C-alpha cells in the first residue's frame, strides 16, 4: 500500500492544505425494492494536489459510484468526503451544483457535447452557470480551446470534428472554470488507440501544470500514464499504489503507426 499516512479528518485544515480530496470510510447503499445493494463498503482515500490517479476495476466494483460521489453528483450514505476542506456530504443540491461548477471538471466517455452547438458554445456552457460575464466566459473558452490545440476550430460543430477533437473540446469545457480537479470517466473508451494516447498526452501535460486528475479506465495501458493506480473490487479498495517509470504519452505516440486523422 503506497498511501500516505491516514489523515485525521478533524485536523484536516491548514497543515493539510496540500490535500485536495479526503474520503473517510464512505459507504453507499441503494435500495432496489426489497434488496439493498451495497455499492461502497468503506472507502478511504486521500489525494494530494497535483496527483494523477487512475481508478480501475471491473463493472460492479463500485468505481462508478465512487466517481459520482467524487464528482458531487451523488452523496455518500455514510462516511465523509472533503473536497478542498469543504465537507461535501450534507450539502444541498444547489450547493453541490455550485461545487461542480467551480471545483470539478468532467470528461465523459461519450464526450457529451451538445450537437448543433459550436465548439466554443460547448466550452462556454459551464461559464453560463458561473458568476462571470459573457465576455469573460468567451475569453476563457477561447483560451481553453487553444490549450487543447483547437484554437482554430471554435466555430466547428461536433459533427464536423473527429472523435479525438470532440474529446478535446470536452476537456476544454472541463477546464474552462479552472477547476480544482478533473474527473474523467473512461475518456478514451470511444477512441482508437492512437487518439487515446493523444488524449493521455493532454492529461499528462495538464497534470504537469499542476492540475489534479482522477481518471477511471479499465485499460491497463491507459492507466499506466498516471502517477497512481487505485483498484476497486466489491465496493472496497483492493490496491492503491504509485506507478513507477510511467511512460510519457508524447513519446509513445512517436512509436505508434500513423493513422489518417
Amino acid at each position, binding site marked *: 500500500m503506497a498511501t500516505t499516512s491516514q489523515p485525521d479528518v478533524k485536523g484536516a485544515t491548514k497543515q493539510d492544505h496540500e490535500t485536495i480530496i479526503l474520503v473517510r470510510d464512505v459507504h453507499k447503499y441503494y435500495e432496489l425494492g426489497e434488496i439493498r445493494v451495497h455499492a461502497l463498503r468503506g472507502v478511504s482515500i486521500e489525494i494530494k494536489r497535483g496527483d494523477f490517479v487512475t481508478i480501475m476495476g471491473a463493472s460492479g466494483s463500485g468505481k462508478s459510484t465512487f466517481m*459520482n460521489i467524487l*464528482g458531487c*453528483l*451523488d452523496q455518500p450514505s455514510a462516511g465523509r468526503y472533503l473536497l478542498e476542506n469543504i465537507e461535501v456530504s450534507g450539502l444541498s*443540491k*444547489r450547493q453541490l*451544483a*455550485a461545487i*461542480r*461548477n*467551480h471545483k470539478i471538471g*468532467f470528461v*465523459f466517455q461519450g464526450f*457529451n457535447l*451538445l450537437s*448543433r*452547438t459550436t465548439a466554443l458554445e460547448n466550452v462556454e*456552457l*459551464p461559464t*453560463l*452557470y*458561473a458568476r462571470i460575464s*459573457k465576455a469573460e466566459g468567451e475569453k476563457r473558452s477561447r483560451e481553453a480551446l487553444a490549450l487543447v490545440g483547437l484554437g482554430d476550430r471554435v466555430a466547428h460543430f461536433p459533427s464536423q470534428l473527429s472523435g479525438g477533437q470532440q474529446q478535446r473540446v470536452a476537456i476544454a*469545457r472541463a477546464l474552462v*472554470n479552472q477547476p480544482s480537479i478533473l474527473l474523467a470517466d473512461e475518456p478514451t473508451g470511444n477512441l482508437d488507440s492512437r487518439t487515446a494516447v493523444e488524449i493521455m498526452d493532454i492529461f499528462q501535460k495538464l497534470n504537469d501544470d499542476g492540475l489534479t486528475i482522477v481518471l477511471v479506465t479499465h485499460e491497463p495501458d491507459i492507466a499506466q500514464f498516471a502517477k497512481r493506480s487505485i483498484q476497486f473490487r466489491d465496493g472496497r479498495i483492493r490496491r492503491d499504489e504509485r506507478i513507477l517509470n510511467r511512460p510519457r504519452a508524447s513519446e509513445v505516440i512517436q512509436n505508434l503507426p500513423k493513422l489518417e486523422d
Partner: protein
Amino acid sequence: MDLLAIIRIAMRALGRNKMRSILTMLGIMIGVGAVIAMLGVGQGARQTVQEQIQAMGSNLLFVGAGTVTRSGMHMGWGSTKSLIYDDMLAIMRECPTAHAAAPGSSSSGQVVFGNDNWATRVNGTEPQYFDIRVWPFQEGSAFTQNDVEMAANVAVIGETVRKNLFGATNSIGQTIRINNLPFRVVGVLVPKGTSAAMGDDQDDIILVPITTLQKKITGQNWLRWIMVSAVSRQASYAAQQQIAALLRDRHRIRPAEDDDFFVRNLADMADVADEAGRVMTLLLASIAGVSLIVGGIGIMNIMLVSVTERTREIGVRMAVGATERDVQQQFLTEAVVLSLLGGGIGILFGLSASYLITKTLGWPVLVSPVVIVIAVLFSMAVGVFFGFYPASRAAQLDPIEALRYE
C-alpha cells in the same frame, strides 16, 4: 444567469428544431388570432349598437300601450286602448323631468306614386317627434303644428320609401296616395339604417300628423306610444318612475294589478342590447379560446418530447453546474418563448383577419389595445402553465441517470 442569456439560449434551442418550433407555435398563433378576431367582431357589433342607441337620443323614454288579455289570450303590446292624448299632456304637465313628448299611433298602408307602389308603416305623430328622436331632414322639413290641428294631408317619408317610390325624381311637393288618400310630401328624413336594437329598417316609414292618421286612416282615438325626452340622461330613470306612477293613477290601476302600459328607458334598452352583445362576444371568444388551450397542449407535448430527447444535455448541464432551478428556468423559458412568439404572430393574424372581415363582410371590427395586451399576457400564461410540467420533469432528472441515458 441573467434573463437575457436565458432567452438567448432558449431561442437557440428552438432554432435547432425550426420546423417543429413553428408547428408548435401554429396552435397558439391560430388560438390568439381567433380570439382577437372574434373579440374584435363582438366589440365592433356592441359599439355599433351603442352608437345607434345613442343616436336615437340618449334621454329618450318610450311609453307603450300595454298588453291586454282577452279570454286568456294575450293580444300583444299596443292592444289596450287606455293610452290617450291626455296622458301625454298630463306627463308634460305633471312630470318635472319630462322635457318634451310626442304622441304616436301606427298603421300600415299601401303607398302609391305614379306607377310605383310600396307597403310600409304609417305613423302618426306631432312635429316635436323629430327633435326628440334627433332625426334631421335631408330635404324639406317636418309638418307643422298647424298641420296637426288641421289634420292636413301632409307626409314625411323615410329614405327607403323615397328610394322605392321616387328613385331619382324629386319628391318634395309631390302627391302620394296612402290607402287611396292623397298626401303631399313635405320632408324626407336622413337615413338611420337598420336598428341594431330592433333589427328593423328604420327608414321604411311614413310619418303624418297624428290627427290625420286617427281621423282619416285608422279611425281610432287612442295612442300606441308616447315618446318622451327627459331633461337629462340622469333624469331619465326618475322620469321613468314619475311617468309610471302618473299613468297608474290616471288609468286607475289598483296596487295589485299589472300596468296596462310600459315605460322603457333607452339606457335600459342600451343595457339589454349591450348584454346580448357581451354574451355573443364571450361565446365567440370562448370558442376561439378552446383553440388556444389546444395550442397550449401542443406546447406541453413538444416540451415533453424535447425533455426526453435532451436528457443527456440536461445531465451535462447539471454536471457542469446547472441547478434544478437553472434547468427549470431554461425549459420554462423555451415554452414561454414559443407561446409568446406564437402569440405575437397570432396578434398579427388576428388583426389581418379583422381587417379582412371589415373589408369583405363589411362588419365593423373593433380591436382594442387592451385585447392585445390581454392576448400577450394570456399566451405568456399558456406558456408558463403548459411549460411548467415538462420543465419540472427536466429539473427533477437525476444527473447520473441523465448522463447515462441512451
